[in-house]
């Protein structure tokens, strides 16, 4: 196959994006149609590239001197990510066409959308660090642009996102430069399995920070919840939920599997796992106390990254495979969740939980899609999140540090609890008297198709989990020499995968080794605990909310759930604040999250102001002062150059 084909998924969307900017305004649906069509064509070519097989396609064009060349290389991992990204681009384009077409500055939105798609594809395919940086940094610009489209004050959030992402990207640039000074090459495929020690270790940490920040891990996450409120909704599904996760985890995978070798329980492994575990627990605690549909989801977008980082950081084959599988799964269900959020916002007119309720009957397809995705993210069998989370638990358990699987399980408990809360307050219970739109109806087909396709994917990947594992994940990882190197007995890795991953519908895993039972058992117990927590919280709330005593029990299957659904978010939140979580979630929210924010906003400002003040005092415009600097500087130069030289 001609390697020039690699240019199509990059150039086509970018050119189409630029074309959208200059298209005449009058033509209705043209930009939307163009976006969907271009994304579809890009998907077709991504599929072609994926199918090309073998050692992959490589496009190499000498660019400038100093080893900087235009170099694209689609082998196992990139072409898999490219296919996934292209898939999301199509569905999101379709969704955006319905959601955004009558919004403020929608032309810019579609232009940024397409350019982002092209740049992301470029970043995935890049095989030279400079090319990677070019696309990676270009994404910053469109990120900024897309956030500003939310409303007139969104630029504040956009600036925050730009600065935080820029900070992380500079860490990555430094890391790349360190790596380059160690290896002497800018070609990514020539960097292989370095030991992360010394300068290479610094390079690893810096690059990993950059990659994790892209994926939204702590402490680079604070702009995401703000963006959930300020940015247009499809943006949240598109960048923080789907593409940035894919890109960030993709790069992290390449860093820790290809460029470096991460041994189990090495310092680097512990570093990654700690970031992963901390991100899981803290972000989920914060998610729990949120009162807004989109904001709650955005904290989960952060929390779930923790699982991926934890999985990859274990250095254990099953954990790594789980981390990468979780990336794919997360992109799917989180995308669905944000899309349902968009549908709710569009139809019901708000995303505040206290103004929502009882939407299941009115928007059944959206509701079903939501619950599938919610079960997936919570790790309920047989959905896809269950599979990948179990793999991560196994991997974390195998490292022997019991604290990491415990953190992951804590995350699982609160994830489920918060989604029960979200689901109840939105889809069940009574219609809120404060609801801004009374005659809510199901949303239109262009928004339904993407969310139901992805939700279906969640089910398929969960039930037939061997398919993605065998055809998508395994070829990516098993062909990587690191993986086989890691496997003391190569068959063991495959065995572990198949042990952990029997078809969950059969519940066959109960018959396997005791360790398997034990871990899955704990996970199931977590779900039960979450359910109990939720039930208890709702009961407490019922006591307060008098009106809640008139339950709507018309849906027979979900009768029990209905009884509990009267409680509003407020009560649950109060229960947590006054009880268990008072010292936990709220403190975490206040101290850690706002603390990190304060570091960005206050400490830096303070240090800055102090040095500015001192320096400004010296620049007082007095000639004699200035002259004395010149004379003093000259004296030092003379001493250095003329006197010391002898």
């Amino acid at each position, binding site marked *: 196959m001609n390697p020039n084909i690699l240019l199509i998924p990059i150039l086509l969307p970018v050119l189409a994006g630029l074309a959208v900017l200059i298209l005449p305004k009058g033509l209705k649906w043209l930009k939307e149609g163009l976006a969907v069509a271009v994304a579809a064509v890009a998907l077709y070519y991504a599929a072609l590239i994926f199918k090309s097989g073998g050692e992959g396609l490589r496009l190499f064009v000498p660019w400038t001197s100093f080893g900087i060349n235009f170099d694209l290389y689609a082998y196992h991992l990139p072409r898999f990510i490219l296919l996934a990204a292209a898939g999301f681009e199509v569905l999101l384009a379709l969704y955006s066409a319905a959601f955004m077409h009558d919004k403020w500055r929608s032309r810019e939105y579609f232009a940024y959308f397409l350019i982002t798609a092209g740049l992301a594809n470029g970043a995935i395919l890049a095989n030279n660090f400079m090319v990677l940086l070019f696309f990676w940094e270009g994404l910053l610009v469109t990120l900024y642009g897309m956030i500003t489209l939310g409303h007139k004050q969104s630029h504040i959030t956009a600036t925050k996102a730009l600065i935080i992402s820029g900070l992380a990207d500079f860490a990555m640039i430094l890391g790349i430069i360190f790596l380059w000074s160690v290896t002497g090459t800018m070609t990514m495929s020539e960097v292989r399995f370095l030991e992360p020690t010394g300068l290479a270790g610094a390079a690893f940490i810096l690059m990993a920070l950059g990659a994790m920040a892209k994926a939204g891990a702590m402490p680079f996450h604070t702009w995401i919840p703000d963006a959930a409120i300020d940015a247009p909704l499809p943006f949240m599904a598109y960048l923080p939920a789907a593409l940035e996760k894919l890109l960030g985890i993709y790069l992290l995978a390449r860093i820790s599997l290809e460029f470096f070798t991460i041994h189990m329980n090495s310092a680097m492994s512990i570093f990654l796992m700690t970031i992963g575990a901390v991100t899981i627990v803290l972000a989920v605690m914060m998610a729990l106390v949120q009162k807004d549909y989109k904001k709650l989801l955005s904290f989960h977008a952060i929390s779930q990254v923790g699982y991926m980082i934890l999985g990859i950081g274990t250095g254990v084959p099953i954990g790594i495979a789980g981390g990468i599988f979780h990336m794919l799964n997360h992109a799917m269900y989180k995308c669905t969740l944000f899309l349902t959020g968009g549908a709710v916002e569009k139809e019901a007119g708000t995303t505040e939980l206290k103004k929502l309720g009882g939407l299941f009957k009115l928007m059944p397809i959206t509701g079903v899609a939501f619950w599938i995705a919610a079960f997936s993210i919570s790790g309920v069998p047989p959905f896809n999140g269950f599979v990948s989370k179990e793999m991560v638990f196994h991997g974390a358990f195998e490292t022997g540090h019991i604290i990491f699987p415990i953190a992951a399980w804590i995350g699982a408990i609160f994830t489920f609890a918060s989604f029960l809360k979200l689901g109840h307050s939105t889809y069940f219970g009574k219609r809120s008297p404060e609801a801004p739109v009374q005659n809510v109806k199901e949303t239109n087909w262009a928004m339904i198709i993407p969310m139901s396709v992805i939700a279906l994917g969640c089910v398929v990947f969960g039930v037939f989990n061997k398919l993605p594992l065998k055809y998508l994940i395994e070829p990516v990882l098993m062909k990587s020499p690191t993986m086989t190197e890691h496997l003391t007995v190569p068959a063991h890795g495959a065995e572990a995968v198949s042990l952990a991953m029997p078809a969950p519908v059969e519940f066959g895993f109960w018959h396997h080794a005791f360790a398997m039972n034990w871990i899955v058992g704990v996970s199931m117990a977590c779900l039960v605990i979450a359910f109990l927590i939720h039930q208890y919280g709702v009961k407490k709330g019922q006591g307060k909310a008098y009106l809640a005593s008139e339950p709507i029990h018309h849906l027979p299957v979900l009768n029990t759930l209905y009884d509990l659904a009267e409680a509003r978010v407020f009560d649950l939140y109060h229960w947590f604040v006054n009880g268990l979580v008072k010292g936990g979630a709220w403190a975490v929210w206040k101290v850690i999250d706002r603390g990190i924010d304060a570091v960005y906003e206050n400490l830096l400002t303070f240090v800055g102001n102090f040095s500015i003040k001192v320096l400004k005092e010296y620049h*007082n415009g*007095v000639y*004699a*002062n200035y*002259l*004395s600097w010149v*004379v003093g500087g000259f004296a030092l130069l003379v001493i250095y150059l003329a006197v010391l030289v002898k």
Partner: protein
Amino acid sequence: MDLLNLILLLMLAGFALMAVFLKDLLKAAISLAFMSSLLAVLLYRLDSPFAAVFELSVVAGLITVLFVSVIALTKEEETAKEARWPAYVFPLALVVFGLIDIKVMQSLFATTPQGFGNPEASFGATLWGVRSLDILGQIAVIFGGVFGVLALLREKPLTAKQKEDAIIAKDGGKEKLW
């Protein structure tokens, strides 16, 4: 002869210091002009009559004109309070510099290579034959001075209100009465 040179040099340094330390900018500029004139005398005494003429005409003349004209434009009193310490530090620095200077110069002159250049060549030949680009540059500098003075001493363009006032003043306020 050496003694006279030394006296001239000291006077020159004195005027230079005055130029730096005098509060009144106009006096300082005039001190500078005196300094240049003394320098011109010194140059003349050191067998460089052309340099002396240039020094006198360009530095003592032209640049002083520029200075004085610029100072004439700055009418307001200097309000910024100057730090006092430079008044003590600079003389000290000057002494230290002078000492180093003497030391360096002595070793410098001891090692000066002799016999470069062409002592027989006339000033004109050197000037036109070797340094013609400098002449071009000098012409440009003189242009710069002239245009600078022209630009800075131009009449300020009147604002709309000033124009109105001028008309009123001219007509004795008749237009306004209408």
